[in-house]
């Protein structure tokens, strides 16, 4: 456009947009807004419904020690079981993903990938049954060994649960449940490592493991963290498996192999809700709000970790 001295408004130019383009962008926008509305709705429900429990006097809350005393062990149990699951599942999932992408012969790699993915399709209650009926009894001798030899570590102080329904068993069941999520994402990002960078490492005289360390793992780092956070999200919210496996009694303890364990938020809601009414329900919902906030925090943290070294991500 040439500059004109006349003070008249320049004609408004609308970019030409096709109808399909407008429909699609409108549809995408609605979908985006919808998810925000749903999320806000859930958040608002949790806040409103938990207000009576938050403002109630401590004696009225179940346990009669106040809301904080009621929820604290639940938060602790939730975080501890999820942490165990994450610590066990992440290295295992990364190893599985590396094996499938780089080491397994192609004939084996694909079926193996399917089998791991299949783990995700098993309903969580089945995991719960498996945990209580098979895994827990199998673990008892191992726990006894732990107590005998590593009992000086508070984690394994005992006394050993005779049923094996301990925090560690619950964490292991959770680990198997979140394994497919993490390994699927890790497999995806490892497979996408550009051949360019893999060859750069090999041409420098890297062995396959060195190539993986130089080119594949750093490249897949954010993907693995993302997968781990998705897995953590599932572990934090897992209900049925924990409700079945974990033998609940007592409060906060780091003892992983005894029968006195704090419950988790989700399992506690599932177990208590049918018997609850009035303020008890509000209390349970308040614990749900706490879980909601924890999950939000965890995701924010993960995003921060991923972004911290964005310059080096290879995306630029």
């Amino acid at each position, binding site marked *: 456009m040439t500059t004109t001295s006349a003070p008249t408004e320049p004609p408004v130019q609308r970019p030409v947009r096709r109808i399909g383009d407008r429909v699609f962008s409108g549809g995408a926008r609605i979908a985006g807004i919808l998810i925000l509305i749903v999320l806000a709705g859930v958040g608002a429900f949790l806040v409103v419904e938990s207000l009576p429990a938050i403002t109630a006097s401590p004696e009225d809350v179940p346990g009669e020690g106040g809301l904080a005393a009621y929820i604290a062990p639940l938060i602790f149990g939730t975080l501890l079981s999820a942490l165990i699951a994450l610590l066990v599942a992440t290295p295992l999932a990364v190893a599985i993903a590396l094996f499938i992408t780089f080491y397994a012969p192609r004939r084996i790699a694909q079926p193996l990938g399917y089998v791991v993915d299949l783990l995700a399709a098993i309903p969580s209650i089945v995991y719960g049954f498996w945990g209580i009926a098979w895994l827990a009894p199998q673990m008892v001798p191992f726990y006894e060994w732990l107590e005998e030899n590593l009992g000086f570590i508070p984690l394994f102080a005992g006394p050993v649960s005779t049923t094996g329904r301990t925090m560690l068993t619950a964490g292991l069941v959770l680990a198997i449940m979140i394994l497919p999520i993490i390994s699927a994402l890790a497999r995806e990002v490892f497979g996408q490592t550009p051949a*360019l960078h893999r060859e*750069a*490492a*090999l*041409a420098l*005289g890297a062995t396959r493991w*060195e190539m993986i360390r130089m080119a594949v793992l750093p490249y897949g780092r954010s993907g693995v963290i993302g997968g781990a956070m998705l897995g953590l999200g599932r572990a934090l919210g897992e209900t049925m498996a924990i409700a079945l496996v974990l033998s609940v009694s007592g409060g906060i303890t780091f003892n992983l192999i005894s029968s006195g364990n704090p419950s988790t938020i989700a399992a506690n809601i599932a177990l208590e809700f049918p018997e609850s009414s009035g303020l008890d329900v509000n209390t349970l919902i308040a614990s749900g709000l706490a879980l909601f906030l924890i999950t939000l925090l965890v995701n924010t943290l993960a995003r921060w970790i991923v972004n911290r070294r964005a310059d080096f991500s290879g995306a*630029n």
Partner: protein
Amino acid sequence: MAKRIDVSDLNIYYGNFRAVEGVTVSIEPRSVTALIGPSGCGKSTFLRSLNRMHEVLPGARVEGKVVMDGQDLYGADVDPVDVRRQIGMVFQRPNPFPTMSIYDNVAAGLRLNNKKMKKSELDDLVERSLRGANLWNEVKDRLDRPGSGLSGGQQQRLCIARAIAVEPDVLLMDEPCSALDPISTLAIEDLMTELKDKYTIVIVTHNMQQAARVSEQTGFFNLNGVGQPGRLIEFNPTEKIFSNPDERATEDYISGRFG
């Protein structure tokens, strides 16, 4: 440093497909050898077989002999990893590790070969390599920044610095300038002229002027048709190839009558 390579009766396969057939050639030390020819004629495949990068692809294999100063690179007891430590490679597209800083990129190969190197020693080698690649002055103030933030030409020189940091005997370059602008290309060509005092350099190029400018010897690859294996048609001093080639096909190619 700077070893000669003797290739005899080399056949290169991808699975059952014979990509390159019957190559016999001697590559002189301390010189630049250029490989030219139309796309798909097997010159890159041949180049990659010299440092055993070819066999990275599943099903790829080689028949024949590649001997570097008396050492058979395809001998039964030879580890391809060792071969690649002696024969460096620069690729068509600049490929610095995106997750590493400029410094770490150059140090990557050194750290593979020698885990326990003193920091000061490593600093010296990184500086020397970057100077060797004519990049030091441009990056010395930002060695801790990602290598992927450099321009294409700088990235390619970073890759050259990374390759020469481990002091290989031979440097293979697979169309190192095809993704670069003319100024960066010139910088790389000047660099090759400097590097050939110390290294044996083999370069694949589509740019015939480039072959004429930088190389002492030139090999012309060609193939009879699609699905046929590529062959080394002619190997002669560069001057002869570009003025008075022995083969008709070579003359046709360099004068642009086909391909």
